[in-house]
């Protein structure tokens, strides 16, 4: 009697449990889909708001003047400035970051690594507004006093963005260098090559897709970065194509932030700012896709 009662209770329990389990699984599945949903919503809403100006076609994509007051929304100077600022920052980050990654992967004693790695990780997260404020107070003043110009310029943007890009370049390049099979290195050293020759001829060439990936990802981050760069590059009233690194410029992100604060909602100007958002999103998406492809390729060659 008690035996069958127990069995009965057990069956009931597992039935109830089974239902709850399936319900929870469905619920978790819906939660997992939320990220997909959010990305679709973002794309849909930004595109929808941008379309009235994207539809201008060549006047927007190849237009040379951006004068919202006169209904001119040419995007060329802004996009060009964005790339100038992004590529320059990347150059500085590469010159510092790749050697730093080589040192961390090959030479650093454990205690030094334990000091450098966390500070690199923290540098990634340091609020960009604080970095921008530091840039405005120190870097801009330094450039104005010692190099010339207004101080708020492309060069200041390069340095600040290089600082923000550096951690990405260092961590991904270091991972790529570490992924090169040990046997390659040992074979090279065994043949009598010096450590430096081994690094130059074996390690770096074998890690190159990972290193390239870190650079392109860094560039995506630099182009999408907003506050720090906004505070140091000057933002002239009309976007132009600069002729020297000491001139102020306007980039996509800074234009959006500055003009969205006074734009009339529903005006062509507002749609133009969302169209800038579409361009920014597209550039960064392409760069991120290239990064992912390169990292995948790096993993494949590393395994071989």
């Amino acid at each position: 009697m008690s035996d069958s009662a127990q069995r009965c209770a057990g069956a009931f329990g597992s039935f109830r449990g089974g239902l709850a389990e399936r319900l929870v699984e469905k619920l978790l599945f819906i939660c997992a889909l939320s990220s997909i949903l959010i990305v679709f919503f973002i794309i849909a809403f930004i595109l929808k708001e941008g379309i009235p100006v994207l539809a201008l076609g060549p006047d927007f994509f190849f237009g040379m003047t951006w004068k919202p007051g006169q209904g001119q929304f040419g995007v060329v100077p802004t996009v060009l400035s964005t790339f100038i600022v992004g590529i320059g920052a990347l150059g500085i980050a590469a010159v510092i970051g790749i050697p730093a990654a080589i040192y961390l992967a090959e030479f650093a004693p454990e205690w030094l690594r334990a000091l450098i790695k966390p500070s690199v990780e923290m540098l990634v997260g340091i609020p960009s507004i604080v970095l921008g404020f530091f840039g405005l107070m120190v870097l801009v003043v330094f450039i104005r006093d010692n190099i010339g110009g207004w101080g708020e310029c492309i060069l200041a943007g390069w340095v600040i963005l290089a600082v923000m890009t550096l951690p990405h370049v260092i961590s991904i390049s270091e991972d790529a260098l570490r992924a090169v099979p040990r046997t390659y290195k040992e074979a090279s050293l065994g043949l009598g090559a010096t450590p430096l020759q081994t690094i130059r001829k074996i390690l770096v060439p074998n890690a190159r897709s990972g290193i390239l990936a870190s650079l392109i990802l860094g560039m995506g981050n630099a182009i999408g970065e907003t506050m720090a760069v906004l505070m140091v590059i000057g933002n002239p009233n009309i976007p132009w194509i600069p002729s020297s690194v000491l001139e102020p410029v306007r980039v996509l992100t800074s234009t959006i932030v500055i003009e969205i604060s006074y734009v009339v909602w529903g005006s062509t100007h507002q749609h133009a700012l969302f169209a800038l958002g579409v361009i920014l999103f597209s550039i960064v998406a392409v760069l991120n896709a290239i990064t992912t492809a390169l990292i995948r390729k790096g993993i494949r060659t590393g395994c071989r």
Partner: protein
Amino acid sequence: MNRGEVAEKLVKAGLLGAALISVAVLLIVVAYIVLKGVGTINLEFLTQAQYRFGRGGGIFPQIIGSLGLVGVCLLFAVPLGVASAIYLAEYAPNNLVTESVRFFVACLAGIPSIVIGLFGLVFLVYYLHLGVSLLSGGLALGFMILPWTVRASEEAIKAVPQSYREASLALGVTKLQTIRRIVLKSAYPGIITGVLLGTGKAIGETAVVLLTAGSGLESFLPRSIFDPVASLPVYVYLLATTGNTSEQLERAFGASLVLITLFLLMSIFALVLRDRYFKRMRGRGGG
């Protein structure tokens, strides 16, 4: 040979120098903000509201506003992120659905924050009529850190040794209970680490908050989640770019110092926690 050795030493020194630059930059920025800001910090600064566009008063509403925004953001992103991670790590077969979820999580992580701000503005503020408010700002920040909570939780859950689950299942415990009592209990330090790192990112985020939460100068506390709210980063931005008196700059430095202190506390706590957690997991998993 001798010349070669000298060259090697030089190159090694150069590489070391490059590696130390990142440490130096971090130290210099933090030291500068501390030196410039520490004079402004006192009880009045931390507990009063600003007046006359930041020429006087303190940053109390900004501190509370930033904490409130992060609170709303975490309430949205943590349950959703952890739930997604449980599904990905424990339930999902490796198929097209999970592949695409992971792909879109990576996509979301790659979207520039200003684009998320624009989305928050058009979708939350205008389309859903939530207005420029604590709720809009918190949700927009939530969209931003959701990918981090998903990834960190998934990694933490996957780091729990398979033997724990098998032991629990073998004792006749259901899968759901195993996940709740065993897996999540073992994984929670890793999840907290990810959440803390996300929080550090959210609390310093300016562009998103500027577009969706408020002007930064509000000198009152929000009475509901539908009120606009001040925040530290936006306040720093306004004072730093439009302020021209020394009082305003002093207050911008003070607010930066409070912001960076909150950020550093969270990061250091997260890194320490992660270090311990992974040591413990490795120790147990191996033994």
